[in-house]
C-alpha cells in the first residue's frame, strides 16, 4: 500500500487530477459546475505537467459540448486516450455522439458534475436530471458520493473502460460534491499507473483509424443487418459489472478503500431499506447508522454502478429480511410510472421473484428528493424510513419540500440529529463575495486538515446577485472523515461569524448558533456600544443561547495596516484566536505560513502588510459582555415594502429572506411564468457612497443615466408646478433648451437603495466647477450623509409623470435619457459593462420589445430569482423576456419574430375582411400606418384601441380570431441578446442562419471577450494574448471579426459600439439597427471584471480599447447601398495610443508579462500590427466609391 498523501481539495479537482494523468487529448467547454475540471486541465497542461506516459495532454476548448464530444470521438477513433467534462444541457448536447462512441465500443470516460436541466426554469445546482437523460446512450454510469470517491472512481472508470471497451460516464453531484472542499487521500501516481493496463491502451490504439491498416466505421446500415449489429455488444455490457467490481477490488488492494457496485450498510436483518446514489449517501448513512445503532431494523443500499444495471449484484446486497424498500431518485421524469432507478429496481426484483431467485417481493416505493441541490438531511432520511413503517406507506412520494398540490411530500422532524454530529465542530461565516471570506475559509480548512490529524469539510452557499453578493460558508472539523453532505442547520454551529455589520438586520444568523457557542462580529462600533447595534431578537438569542460575543473592527485594522478593504486574513485570525480549534500561537504561525506561501514571490511589502494585520488583529479583538436583558428598540425590518403586490409579499419576500425552502408547491407558478419588475421591491442598500447632484453646474447632458449599469440615476422632465408637493430636499432646475416647454423642470435623481456606488456617473460627468475642479456636477458622497435624504426624494421622483415620449428625439442623449428605463436594478456586477446597453434598448424600444436571451450573465442578471429587472411603464407595457437555451437563442428570437409577423399578417387580413364593419377610414389608417416614429407608433396604438372598442359591437366570425392577434398591429421590436460565448461560439451557427434569413430581428452581442458568467473562459472573441481560463498561457489567435463576417451578407445592419468611448454613436447605432427592417447585429464592447481591471475604470477602458485600435467603432447600413452610398462609416479615429498601453492597463494581458514574458512581447508586436492593419482595412472599405446599382440593360429585341 502506498504512502498516504492527505490533501484538501474539491470534487472537480479530484476528478481532473486523474483525468489529466490518464488522457492525452482533452476537449473542453465551460459549463457550471463542471468548468473547473477543464480549467485545471488547461492550467496543468500550460504548466507542462505530464500524464502517465510522460506527455503533456493536449487541452483544446471547443465551440460547444457537441463540438467537444465530437473532437473526443475523433481523437478516440484515431487512437488517443481522450476525455471531456460537462453537465446539464452540455451533456444533452453530447447525446448524438455518445451513441456513436458507445456503438463503436470506444473506451473513454466522461466526467459529469451532475446538474439540473432547464425546464420551468434553469438551475445550475445539482441533481441527476442530466445523467438520467443519457442512460440509453450505452455509456456505463458510475456514481461517486464523495470527493474521495470521485478521485477513486475516476480511476476505476478509466481502468474499467479500457478493459470493457464500454465508454463510462463518471458522475457526482454538482456543487455538493464538485465544490465541496474536503481532506482526502490523494492517489499516488504509482497507484494510478498500477491500475492502467498498458496492453489495453495498446489494444485501443490498434483498433484506431490508421492508413497503414485502414478500416471503415460509421457505415450506413439497412434493415437486413442493423438490428443484429446492435445485439453484438451484449457480451461487452454483460461483462462490465464484474470488470468494475474487479477494478474496485484491485484499488482496495492498493489503497485499502473497498467499494462495491451495490453496497449495503445497516442492520443485517433490516426490514426497511432505503436505496439511493450520489452525495445523499452521506446524509443517509448517518441516519441509517444512527437508527440501526438504536436497534431499528433499517439499512441502506449505496448504488455505485447504475448502468449496466446488474440485478445479480443488487440481490446479493439486499438483505433477505427486507420488507419495504424505498428507491430514491434525484430527478423527475414527468408522466413516467416512477423515476428511472425505481423502475429498474422494481423490474429487477420482479424478475428475481418470477425467476425464483427471490422468495418474496418486498414492497418497493418510489421517492424523489434533492432536485437542484435541495437540502437532503438525515432527518429526511428518517422520515422516509418512518414512512416505510406504516402499513400503507405513500408511494411516489417526495421529501424535502412541502407539496400541498399533489400531497406527495413526507413530513420530517428537523430536530433529528444523528450521532455522527457528535465530536464535529461546526462553524458558519457570513461574508460578502468580494471580501475574501470564502478563500480564507478554504485556507482555514487546509490549515486544520493538513496540519493536524483532524478532517475538515467546507461547503459554500452563494447569492443570486453579483453586485454585493453574499456568501455563507459551512465548515466542519472533526477527528473522523466527514460525510455530512448537507448544510449546517439551526442550533448546530458552535461558531458563527458575521463579516459585514449590514447583515445584522438582514439575516437570522444566530438561529444557526448552538447553545454555548461563539458569535464574532466585524463592526466599526466600539465594544461598549456594539450591543445597541443588534436587533432585539438577536440580543435575545445571545442571551438565551448563552453565546460568547466578540467584536473586531476589521476594516479599521485593514486600513491601518495597508490592507485596504481586505479583511479576510483579519477575520480568519479572529476565528483561530477564539474558536479554540487549534492552539492560538500555532494557528497564527500557520496563517502566517499560508500568507508567505501566497505572497512570498509577490513582494516583501505585501507579506509585511499581512503579517502586520494578523498581529494587529489580536490586539483589536474584544469580548463583549452580554447583558441579562435584551434592550434593543428595533427588529429586523421587513424585506419588501408594505405596498408591494401580494405575490411579492407572499413569495418574493420569502425568497429574498433566504427562506424559499419553506414555500409550498401551491405558491409556485406551474409553468415558470413569474411577474416582471420585482427588483424594485428588493431594497438592497449596498452603496457606501452615493452620487449627489449639483444643479448649479449641470448642463443636462444626460451622460450619467446613460452609463449607470443599474438604472439607479434617472432623468425626468415635468411641469415645474409639480415640485410644490416635493420634499424640501428634492433637487430640480429649469430644463435647458428649446426642445422642451419653458415652464418645465428637470431632475437627475439617484435611487439610494438601488445604487451600487460604482461611481461611473461621476466619472462620466464632463462638468467641473472652474473654481473648484474637484467638484463636478455629480459627486460621490458618503451614503450615511445622503441615503436618508434621497429616499423620500426618490419616492417623489417616481411619483412624477413620465414626459411624453413622442416629443423626445431619441438621437440626442439628453432626450433618450428622459425615456423611462424598463430594465432596472439588476443584480449585475458593480460597474457592469453590459447592462447600460440593455437598459438603453429598454428605454428606446422597451414598450414594444420581445427579448430572447441567451444563457449567460445577461440571463442571470436578467432573469435570476428572487427578483427580476425587466419592468413596465405606466401603461403596463414593457419588455417580455424568455431564455430558451445557450445555443439556440438566435433561432428562438427568430421564432418570436416569425410569430409576431404572422399574427400581424393575420390581423391585417382580418382588418381587411372586416373593413366595412370597422369603418374603412379606421381600417385604412391601421393598414397603412407609418410606425417609423414614436408618434406614429403612438397613433397606431390609439387606432388599435379604437379597433378593439369597435370589435365589441361587431358580430362576425372573424372577430374572436382578430381579438387574439390584434395587439400585434402595433410594431414589435424583437431583440436577441447574449454574450460572446453565445454569438461567437456555441450559438454562431444559429446567429449566422438568422442573419441570412433577412428577417427583422436585432442581435445585441454583449462582448466581454470571455465567458463571463461561468468565470472567464476563453471564447473566440478573446483577444490575442489575453489570459483567460482555458487560455492560461495567453490566447494564441486573433479575435474573430464577427462584424466583418456579418457584413459579408450585405443585407445585415452591423455596428460595433462602445458607449464609454462614444456614446452618441452607440445611441445612433441602436436606433438605426432597430429601424432597419432586416437583421441587425450590434456588437457592444463590454468591460468586465474578468478583464482584471477595476470596474470604476469601465469607461476609461472602453476609451483605451477604441483609441488603441482594439475596438474600432463603425456602422454598416445596407440602406445606403440602395442610394449608391458606401454602407460603411468609420466612427473612430486611427489608433492613437500604443497597444502596449491598453494591455498594460488590464491584468488579463499584463499577467502574461510575468508568467510568459517572451510570449507576451511576441503577442504584443503581432497585436500592434494587427490593429493597425485592421483599421486600415476598415478605412479602405469605408472609402470605396459605391454606385447605385443600375438596372440591368435589357437586350434589344
Amino acid at each position, binding site marked *: 500500500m502506498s504512502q498516504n498523501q492527505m490533501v484538501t481539495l474539491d470534487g472537480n479537482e479530484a476528478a481532473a487530477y486523474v483525468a489529466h494523468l490518464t488522457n492525452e487529448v482533452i476537449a473542453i467547454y465551460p459549463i457550471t459546475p463542471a468548468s473547473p475540471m477543464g480549467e485545471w486541465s488547461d492550467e496543468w497542461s500550460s504548466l507542462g505537467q505530464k500524464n502517465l506516459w510522460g506527455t503533456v495532454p493536449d487541452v483544446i476548448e471547443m465551440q460547444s459540448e457537441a463540438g467537444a464530444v465530437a473532437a473526443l470521438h475523433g481523437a478516440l477513433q484515431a487512437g488517443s486516450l481522450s476525455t471531456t467534462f460537462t453537465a446539464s444541457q452540455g451533456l444533452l448536447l453530447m447525446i448524438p455522439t455518445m451513441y456513436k462512441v458507445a456503438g463503436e465500443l470506444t473506451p473513454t470516460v466522461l466526467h459529469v458534475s451532475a446538474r439540473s436541466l432547464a425546464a420551468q426554469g434553469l438551475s445550475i445546482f445539482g441533481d441527476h436530471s442530466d445523467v438520467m437523460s443519457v442512460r440509453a446512450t450505452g455509456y456505463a454510469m458510475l456514481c461517486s458520493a464523495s470527493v474521495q470517491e470521485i478521485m477513486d472512481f475516476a480511476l476505476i472508470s478509466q481502468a474499467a473502460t479500457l478493459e470493457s471497451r464500454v465508454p463510462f460516464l463518471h458522475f457526482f453531484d454538482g456543487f455538493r460534491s464538485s465544490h465541496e472542499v474536503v481532506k482526502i487521500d490523494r492517489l499516488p501516481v504509482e497507484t494510478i499507473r498500477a491500475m492502467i493496463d498498458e496492453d489495453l491502451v495498446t489494444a485501443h490504439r490498434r483498433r484506431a483509424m490508421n492508413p497503414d491498416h485502414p478500416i471503415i466505421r460509421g457505415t450506413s446500415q439497412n434493415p437486413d443487418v442493423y438490428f443484429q449489429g446492435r445485439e453484438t455488444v451484449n457480451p461487452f455490457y454483460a461483462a462490465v459489472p464484474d470488470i468494475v467490481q474487479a477494478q474496485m477490488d484491485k484499488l482496495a488492494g492498493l489503497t485499502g478503500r473497498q467499494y462495491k457496485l451495490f453496497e449495503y450498510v445497516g442492520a443485517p436483518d433490516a426490514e426497511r431499506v432505503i436505496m439511493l446514489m450520489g452525495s445523499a449517501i452521506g446524509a443517509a448513512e448517518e441516519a441509517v447508522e444512527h437508527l440501526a445503532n438504536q436497534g431499528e431494523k433499517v439499512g441502506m443500499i449505496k448504488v455505485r454502478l447504475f448502468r449496466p444495471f446488474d440485478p445479480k449484484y443488487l440481490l446479493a446486497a439486499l438483505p433477505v429480511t427486507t420488507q419495504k424498500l424505498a428507491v430514491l431518485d434525484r430527478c423527475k421524469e414527468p408522466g413516467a410510472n416512477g423515476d428511472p432507478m425505481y423502475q429498474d429496481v422494481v423490474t429487477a426484483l420482479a424478475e428475481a421473484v418470477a425467476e425464483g431467485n427471490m422468495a418474496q417481493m418486498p414492497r418497493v416505493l418510489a421517492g424523489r428528493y434533492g432536485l437542484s441541490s435541495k437540502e437532503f438531511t438525515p432527518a429526511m432520511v428518517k422520515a422516509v424510513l418512518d414512512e416505510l413503517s406504516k402499513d400503507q406507506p405513500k408511494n411516489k412520494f417526495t421529501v424535502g419540500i412541502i407539496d400541498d398540490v399533489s400531497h406527495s411530500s413526507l413530513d420530517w422532524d428537523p430536530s433529528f440529529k444523528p450521532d455522527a454530529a457528535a465530536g464535529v465542530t461546526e462553524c458558519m461565516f457570513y461574508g*460578502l463575495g468580494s471580501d475574501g471570506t470564502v478563500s480564507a475559509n478554504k485556507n482555514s480548512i487546509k490549515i486544520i486538515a493538513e496540519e493536524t490529524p483532524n478532517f475538515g469539510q467546507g461547503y459554500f452557499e*452563494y447569492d443570486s446577485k453579483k453586485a454585493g453578493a453574499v456568501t455563507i460558508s459551512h465548515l466542519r472539523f472533526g477527528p473522523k472523515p466527514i460525510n455530512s453532505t448537507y448544510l449546517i442547520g439551526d442550533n448546530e454551529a458552535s461558531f458563527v461569524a458575521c463579516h459585514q455589520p449590514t447583515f445584522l438586520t438582514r439575516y437570522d444568523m444566530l438561529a444557526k448558533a448552538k447553545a454555548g457557542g461563539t458569535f464574532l462580529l466585524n463592526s466599526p462600533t466600539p465594544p461598549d456600544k456594539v450591543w445597541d447595534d443588534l436587533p432585539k431578537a438577536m440580543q435575545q438569542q445571545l442571551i438565551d443561547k448563552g453565546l460568547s460575543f466578540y467584536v473586531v473592527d476589521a476594516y479599521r485594522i485593514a486600513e491601518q495596516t495597508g490592507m485596504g478593504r481586505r479583511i479576510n486574513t483579519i477575520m480568519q485570525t479572529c476565528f483561530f484566536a477564539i474558536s479554540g480549534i487549534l492552539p492560538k500561537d500555532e494557528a497564527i504561525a500557520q496563517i502566517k505560513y499560508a500568507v508567505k506561501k501566497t505572497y512570498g514571490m509577490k513582494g516583501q511589502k505585501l507579506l509585511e502588510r499581512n503579517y502586520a494585520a494578523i498581529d494587529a488583529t489580536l490586539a483589536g479583538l474584544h469580548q463583549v459582555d452580554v447583558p441579562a436583558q435584551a434592550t434593543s428598540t428595533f427588529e429586523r425590518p421587513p424585506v419588501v415594502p408594505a405596498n408591494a403586490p401580494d405575490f411579492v409579499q407572499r413569495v418574493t419576500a420569502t425568497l429574498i429572506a433566504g427562506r424559499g425552502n419553506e414555500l409550498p408547491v401551491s405558491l409556485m407558478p406551474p409553468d415558470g411564468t413569474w411577474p416582471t419588475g420585482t427588483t424594485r421591491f428588493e431594497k438592497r442598500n449596498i452603496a457606501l457612497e452615493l452620487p449627489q447632484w449639483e444643479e448649479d453646474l449641470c448642463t443636462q447632458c444626460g451622460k450619467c443615466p446613460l452609463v449607470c449599469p443599474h438604472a439607479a440615476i434617472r432623468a425626468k422632465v415635468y411641469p415645474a408646478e409639480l415640485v410644490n408637493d416635493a420634499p424640501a430636499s428634492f433637487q430640480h432646475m429649469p430644463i435647458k433648451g428649446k426642445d422642451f416647454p419653458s415652464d418645465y423642470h428637470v431632475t437627475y435623481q439617484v435611487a439610494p437603495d438601488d445604487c451600487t456606488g460604482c461611481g461611473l456617473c461621476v466619472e462620466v460627468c464632463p462638468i467641473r466647477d472652474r473654481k473648484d475642479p474637484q467638484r463636478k456636477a455629480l459627486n460621490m458622497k458618503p451614503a450615511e450623509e445622503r441615503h436618508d435624504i434621497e429616499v423620500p426624494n426618490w419616492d417623489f421622483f417616481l411619483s412624477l409623470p413620465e414626459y411624453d415620449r413622442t416629443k423626445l428625439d431619441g438621437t440626442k442623449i439628453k432626450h433618450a435619457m428622459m425615456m423611462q428605463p424598463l430594465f432596472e436594478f439588476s443584480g449585475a456586477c458593480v460597474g457592469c459593462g453590459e447592462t447600460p446597453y440593455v437598459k438603453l434598448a429598454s428605454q428606446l424600444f422597451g414598450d414594444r420589445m420581445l427579448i430572447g436571451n441567451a444563457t449567460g450573465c445577461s440571463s442571470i442578471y436578467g432573469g435570476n430569482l428572487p427578483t427580476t429587472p425587466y419592468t413596465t411603464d405606466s401603461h403596463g407595457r414593457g419588455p417580455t423576456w424568455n431564455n430558451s437555451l445557450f445555443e439556440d437563442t438566435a433561432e428562438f428570437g427568430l421564432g418570436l419574430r416569425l410569430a409576431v409577423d404572422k399574427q400581424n399578417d393575420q390581423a391585417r387580413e382580418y382588418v381587411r375582411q372586416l373593413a366595412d364593419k370597422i369603418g374603412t377610414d379606421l381600417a385604412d389608417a391601421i393598414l397603412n400606418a407609418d410606425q417609423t416614429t414614436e408618434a406614429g407608433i403612438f397613433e397606431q396604438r390609439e387606432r388599435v384601441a379604437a379597433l378593439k372598442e369597435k370589435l365589441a359591437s361587431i358580430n362576425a366570425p372573424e372577430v374572436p380570431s382578430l381579438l387574439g392577434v390584434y395587439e400585434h398591429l402595433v410594431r414589435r421590436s424583437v431583440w436577441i441578446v447574449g454574450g460572446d460565448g453565445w454569438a461567437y461560439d456555441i450559438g454562431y451557427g444559429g446567429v449566422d442562419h438568422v442573419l441570412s434569413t433577412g428577417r427583422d430581428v436585432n442581435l445585441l452581442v454583449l462582448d466581454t471577450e470571455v465567458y463571463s458568467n461561468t468565470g472567464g473562459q476563453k471564447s473566440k472573441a478573446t483577444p490575442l494574448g489575453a489570459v483567460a481560463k482555458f487560455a492560461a498561457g495567453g490566447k494564441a489567435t486573433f479575435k474573430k471579426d464577427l462584424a466583418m463576417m456579418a457584413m459579408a451578407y450585405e443585407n445585415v445592419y452591423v455596428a460595433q459600439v462602445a458607449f464609454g468611448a462614444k456614446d452618441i454613436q452607440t445611441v445612433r447605432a441602436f436606433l438605426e439597427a432597430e429601424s432597419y427592417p432586416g437583421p441587425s447585429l450590434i456588437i457592444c464592447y463590454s468591460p468586465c471584471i474578468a478583464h482584471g481591471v477595476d470596474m470604476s475604470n469601465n469607461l476609461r477602458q472602453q476609451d483605451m480599447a477604441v*483609441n488603441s485600435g482594439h475596438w474600432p467603432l463603425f456602422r454598416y447600413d445596407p440602406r445606403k447601398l440602395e442610394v449608391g452610398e458606401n454602407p460603411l462609416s468609420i466612427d473612430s479615429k486611427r489608433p492613437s495610443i500604443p497597444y502596449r498601453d491598453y494591455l498594460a492597463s488590464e491584468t488579463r494581458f499584463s499577467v502574461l508579462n510575468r508568467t510568459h514574458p517572451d510570449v507576451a512581447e511576441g503577442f504584443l508586436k503581432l497585436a500592434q500590427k494587427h490593429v493597425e492593419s485592421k483599421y486600415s482595412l476598415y478605412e479602405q472599405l469605408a472609402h470605396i466609391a459605391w454606385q447605385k446599382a443600375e438596372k440591368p440593360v435589357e437586350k434589344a429585341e
Partner: protein
Amino acid sequence: MDLSTKFLGLDLKNPLVPSSSPLSKSVDQSKKLEDAGAAAIIMYSLFEEAITAETESMNRFLNQQDTGFAEADDGFLPAWQDFSTGTEPYLENLRKLKEALDIPIIASLNGVTPSGWVEHGKELEQAGADALELNVYYVAADINQSGDAVEDRYVEILRTLKGAISIPINMKLSPSFSSVGNMVQRLAGAGADGVSLFNRFYQPDINTDSLRLQPSLHPSTSAEALLAMRWIAILYGRIDNLSLGATGGVHTPDDAVKLLLAGADVVHLCSSLLRHGAGHVGVVLKGIEQWMESQSFESVADFRGRVSALAVPNPAEFERANYVNIIDSYSFAPGVMV
C-alpha cells in the same frame, strides 16, 4: 579608425548607446543591438510606481478573486502562483542581459519614494548593472513649488544614491530648467558621472469624442536633436569628469555626427531603433565612419567638440534665440545695391 569614447568612466568601443526602450526587454533584441554595434545599452526604466501598482493589481486580480457567484466562485483569471512581481523580473532581465552580452549594461530607475530610490538602486547594483541612469521624471505641476525646490529634489536624490551605491550614475534630464547649464553643474557637484540631454515625456492629449485625457507619445524627429545639440555645445569642456550624452531625435548618421561635433561623449538612439529595428545601429555607425572618412578624421576624439561653444568663432550663436537669426537672414548681402 578609432571610434572609441569614454562614458561614465566606462571605455566604449564607439559612441552609440541605445537608450531606455522596450527593445532591452528582450535578450534577443539586445543581442541584435550588440551585434549591430551598440557600445552599451541603457535598459528600460524600472518604475517604482509601476512596480507598486502592478504588484497591487496582480494581488487584487489574481490572489483575491473571490466573487460570491456560484458559477465563478474562484474568480475569473487562472490563478497563476509561481511568478514574481515587484522588482525581481527586472533584476532577472538585467542578470540575463549581463550574462548574454559583452557590452556594459546600464540600468535605469525611476523612483517615487526616497526609500524606493535607494532600495532599488542597491538591488540594481547587486544584480550587476555597470552603471545606473536616474530617470527623474518629474513635472513640477505644483505652482507653489519653486524652481529651486525642484532642483534640490534632483540633487537630493542623486546625493542619497551616491552615498548608497558605488557604480557610476548618469542623470537623464528634461529641458525644463530655467538654467540648464547651472543645473548640470550642480548635479556634477553632487557626484553625477554624466548627464543625458534630454528626456522626452508622454504628453497628455484630449480625446474630443469622450472628452477624456489620453496619453500620447509621438516618435521623435531629427529636428528635436537640435535642442540637445545646443546644450551639449554650450556645456562641452566646461565641467570636469562629466560625460555628456545626447538623446532625443537621433535618426541618421548626420544627427549623430552633429551631436558629436557639439561635444557629446555618446549619442543615444531610441525612436529610430523602434522604427527601423535593432540593425539601425549599424546603419548609423557605418554612416559615421563614412563621414569620418570623407572628412579625414581618424578618431572620434579628433572631431568631438569641434563645433562646441568653446570651439566656434562666435559662441553667441548658440545663445541666440532662433528667430533673431531668421529675421537677420532678410538683411541684404553687403555688395548688392538696392
